[in-house]
């Protein structure tokens, strides 16, 4: 009897562990748009990719790599990695794993620290951030006044940073790894994007990330103390064309909703933040819109709406 009972408990526990969404939520790594560190080594066919370009850029800046920035893990890159590992007391394998990235970050930060002055005062007013993807720059506002500007790296052309008006929804002070130090997540509805430090400091000032906003580690530490969950973050820059293919309704999210919100605002109806969510603010704007144009008194963005807003 007892055996039967124990067997049943084990089965239930196993089912819970494998099937329960609560358990999955807690254990499965979320699909962060910026987690892109794979293991790099010399093999045939040669490895290619943007991460290799970044590796070459960092090693070049530190004086270990003299070849072309060609995004290919070739012999020259391999030798440069070995030289770096040897100089920094790491196992000389020519394989780039997390420990090599971390060491590159540390050395690069030390180099950069020597050249950068640090005299940053805590903002006293309400903080908001503007990330200008054109200029690769973050402007910190305090009560609407410019408080400080930080250089950043933004999404590369194939994985652009999310353009829109966001808010910080989570902060983590101890992330490390691919993110460098500190992580501040944005409420982008179509992916996991945030502001974080980097182990590729020489990418700062370029369009290099998978959409996240990279900062120097020393900067992100400072910024982290200035912002709170709820701090508004606006990102401006280029965006891939968005097509609206269906009616939009309250509760929906996505890039099409964001475009629709921007058009509403352009035409004088304020949807609140353009955050890709058909929430309360957008519903209020729709109510005004439909009333104003004498259309059916509902909140659905349909063909008439798109024609008036010039989306179609």
């Amino acid at each position, binding site marked *: 009897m007892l055996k039967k009972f124990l067997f049943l408990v084990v089965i239930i526990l196993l089912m819970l562990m494998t099937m329960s969404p609560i358990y999955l939520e807690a254990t499965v790594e979320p699909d962060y748009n910026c987690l892109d560190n794979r293991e790099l080594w010399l093999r045939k066919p040669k490895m290619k990719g943007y991460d290799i370009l970044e590796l070459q850029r960092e090693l070049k800046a530190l004086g270990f790599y003299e070849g072309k920035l060609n995004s290919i893990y070739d012999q020259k890159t391999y030798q440069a990695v070995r030289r770096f590992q040897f100089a920094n007391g790491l196992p000389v394998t020519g394989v780039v794993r997390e420990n090599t990235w971390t060491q590159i970050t540390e050395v690069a930060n030390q180099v950069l620290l020597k050249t950068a002055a640090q005299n940053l005062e805590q903002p006293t007013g309400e903080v908001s951030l503007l990330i200008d993807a054109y200029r690769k720059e973050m402007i910190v506002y305090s009560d609407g006044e410019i408080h400080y500007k930080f250089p950043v790296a933004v999404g590369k052309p194939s994985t652009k940073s999310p353009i829109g008006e966001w808010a910080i929804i989570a902060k983590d002070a101890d992330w490390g790894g691919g993110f460098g130090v500190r992580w501040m997540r944005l409420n982008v509805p179509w992916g996991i994007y945030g502001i974080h430090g980097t182990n590729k400091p020489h990418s700062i000032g370029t369009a290099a990330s998978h959409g996240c906003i990279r900062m120097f580690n020393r900067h992100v530490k400072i910024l982290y103390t200035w912002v709170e969950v709820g701090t508004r973050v606006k990102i401006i820059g280029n965006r891939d064309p968005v097509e609206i293919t269906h009616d939009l309704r309250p509760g929906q999210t996505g890039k099409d909703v964001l475009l629709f919100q921007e058009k509403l605002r352009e*035409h004088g109806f304020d949807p609140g933040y353009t955050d890709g969510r058909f929430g309360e603010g957008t519903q209020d704007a729709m109510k005004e819109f439909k009333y104003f144009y*004498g259309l059916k008194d509902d909140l659905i963005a349909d063909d008439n709406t798109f024609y008036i807003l010039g989306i179609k």
Partner: protein
Amino acid sequence: MWKKLKFNLSWIGIITIMLLITIISGAVIFYVKFRAETGFKIDPTVEVDPNQKYQIDYWDYPLFIDLENDYREFLENTIEEFNKFYPNIEVNYQLLSFAEGEQRLKESLLEDRGPDIYNDIFGTKLISEELQLPVNPFLKLEDEAGAKELDNYDPLALRALSGEEEIWGLPTWLIPQLWVGNKGVLAQTGLDLEQVVQEGWNWQEFEKFSQELSAEDKVIIFNPYNPELFYQLLMAAGKGELISSERRLLLTEKDLTETFQFLEQLRDKGVFPREEKRMNEKLLSYFWENQAAVIAPINLWLLNNLYQRELNEGTELTLLPPPSKFKKGVVPIETRSLLLFRQEEYRGDDHTKATYKFAQFVAQRKTLLLAKKLNVMPAYLPLQEEWLTGVGLKEGIKVQLLEYLKQGASHEIGNFADFDLERLVKERIEEGYHNFWFEDRSVSEIVTEMIFDLEQIIAENKEVKTDEKDSFLN
């Protein structure tokens, strides 16, 4: 004895004085209250005191809705300009939500927190019997040369704001109620557009035209969710006034039946899109894709959106009068105005004059710019010629608008109580209009029910009026 009498006399004196005070103050209160209840009288000759500070509250809507043009800036410049003439009149403005502004106004007036001036862009006209001020005392005031301001406003606009010998707002714009046609699609039917513009068209002509449309596989789209179309048809047929001043229903069973039958005949001819109940969803796409020949009803804002888009599209639009039961119909004209209010505790004729001065400044000096931007005809006659030369409309559309204004008609608004009754009547008409499109019922069924309900509404309100009269007499 004498002393006693003296003592008694002084008491009598005191009592007399107290009685006198009570009677006089009572009379004053009664007079003030009576004055408030039985028609508020304004002395329009009272001038604004240059040594006194006045505060005016002005409520408006953000009328330049695109981001390029800031309406706040426009208002602030208007106030600044006004203050050059009247530096002692401080104007505070508020911009309202389009969907909720009117409700907010009504609630605020009930709580005595309303504005001095309200820009009535939706044409409600009568809002508060107790606090709304007529403007005719100012308009009828003669200047030294004997001229009256009244003569400078379009008579159509003044008529639309008149009721019981008062004028209830300072007119700003005139808006003909028109349908929009797709010129290219209309041409396929061989319609003589010029003749329609000049002479209008009757229901038979419109039905014939719709038959030709069907043959060309083109459609007409009426928004079944917007009952304005029904009122436009009634108005074009000379049935704009729904109830008489004696609270009699002016709309007959025959009027309603004929109007619904006109729509039903169009429906039978297959001129509406197949999914008729959802045709409103195709309003603009069908128009721009040259599938719809006529779309209606189109309000001022939607019309402006069409004007703008027309510049980038190959499609050309034209304005059409709603067809009438008769050969020569009328074009319904709507009027927009600035409404003036007082506070429960009257601030004096000089305050009212200050309020009027700002309303007058907006209506006469600032309306031109607004009317040009919004493509509406100013109601202030001296501005109309300048509007014609300055408005950014195509020549053909301007000619059409002028022609429609010539054929325009408006009707008086009656009194506040009748206006409330009219609102109830309209609610019931709108229910009937909704039933026509969305419920599978015959016209006679819908109309019979409507007439029954309307008569009941009228009867109930007659009783209310009689009760009110009785209680007043008692």
